[in-house]
């Protein structure tokens, strides 16, 4: 029994029928996401483009045996992770995704440097801003217009640990739902949120280093 959503079932039928238009639609929808996620693992952009290419070839080759137990999107990204993994193994840097997730979620983390908050032993007064994080020097609407603000975000995401970066790319760049991300990465909703929180916090901090005081 297939649990495919109707749109996926229809798309799969068209793909199996060799309809190029259907395949082109998928490529246009997912190619940048594949490359972006691959870059988290293989680092260099040329290798990432190769991994994306291998992923599509693997996807085409598996069309006839795809059983519809997950969405096409999840299927495509599972192929990507396998391809990225074997590329990484060739470079002798073998870290399973589940290990990344447990390492990255269990490491200690503070969204804001704890010394920015009051501590005096009076529970009611503790944990408040010692001095407020300053407003960003540039108007938000202007920041949104700036190409280098977007580039700064791109770099900050590039520097995130792999699992955090992957979750943030899929959620916040590609606009996936948390459920889609959990399925494709085979992680729990709680871990998904922890990774996302750490990732977003780090990217906000990168912007704060530029537009504020680095809080």
């Amino acid at each position, binding site marked *: 029994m297939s649990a495919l959503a109707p749109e996926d079932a229809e798309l799969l039928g068209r793909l199996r029928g*060799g309809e*190029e238009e259907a*395949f*082109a639609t998928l*490529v*246009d929808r997912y*190619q*940048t996401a594949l490359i*972006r996620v691959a870059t988290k693992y293989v680092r260099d952009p040329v290798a990432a*483009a190769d991994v*994306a*290419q291998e992923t*599509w*070839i693997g996807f*085409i*080759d598996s*069309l006839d045996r795809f059983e519809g137990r997950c969405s096409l999107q999840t299927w495509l990204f599972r192929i990507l992770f396998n391809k990225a993994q074997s590329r990484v193994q060739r470079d002798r840097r073998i870290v399973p995704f589940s290990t990344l997730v447990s390492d990255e979620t269990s490491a200690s983390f*503070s*969204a*804001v440097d*704890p010394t920015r*908050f009051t501590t005096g032993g009076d529970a*009611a007064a*503790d*944990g*408040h*801003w010692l001095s*407020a*994080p300053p*407003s*960003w020097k540039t108007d*938000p609407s202007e*920041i*949104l217009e700036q190409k280098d*603000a*977007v580039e700064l*975000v*791109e770099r900050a*995401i590039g520097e995130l640990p792999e699992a955090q970066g992957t979750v*943030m790319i899929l959620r*916040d*760049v*590609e*606009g996936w739902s*948390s459920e889609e991300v959990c399925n494709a990465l085979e992680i729990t909703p709680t871990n998904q*949120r922890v990774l*996302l*929180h750490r990732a*977003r*916090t780090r*990217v*906000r901090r990168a*912007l*704060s280093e530029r537009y*504020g005081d680095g809080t």
Partner: protein
Amino acid sequence: MTETQDEMSCKELVELVTDYVEGALSASDRDRFESHVSECPPCEEYLEQMKLTLRLTGELAEDAIDPMARDRLLAAFRDWKTG
């Protein structure tokens, strides 16, 4: 279960921003979060900065696809169909 009516601290709030934006807080924590933000300008600012961060991140999505790579993929698909 006893509901905590304790005030949320700023330090606690910055760790709950994502859960708040994601709608993952319990009703009572959401209330504590919102009442804190409404009375604490620095935390309100922090929340706004986080939302701005997300909007900027969303702008990355507009990258163009390399047309040559796209052509190669479509050719691979045609080969598979005829192969």
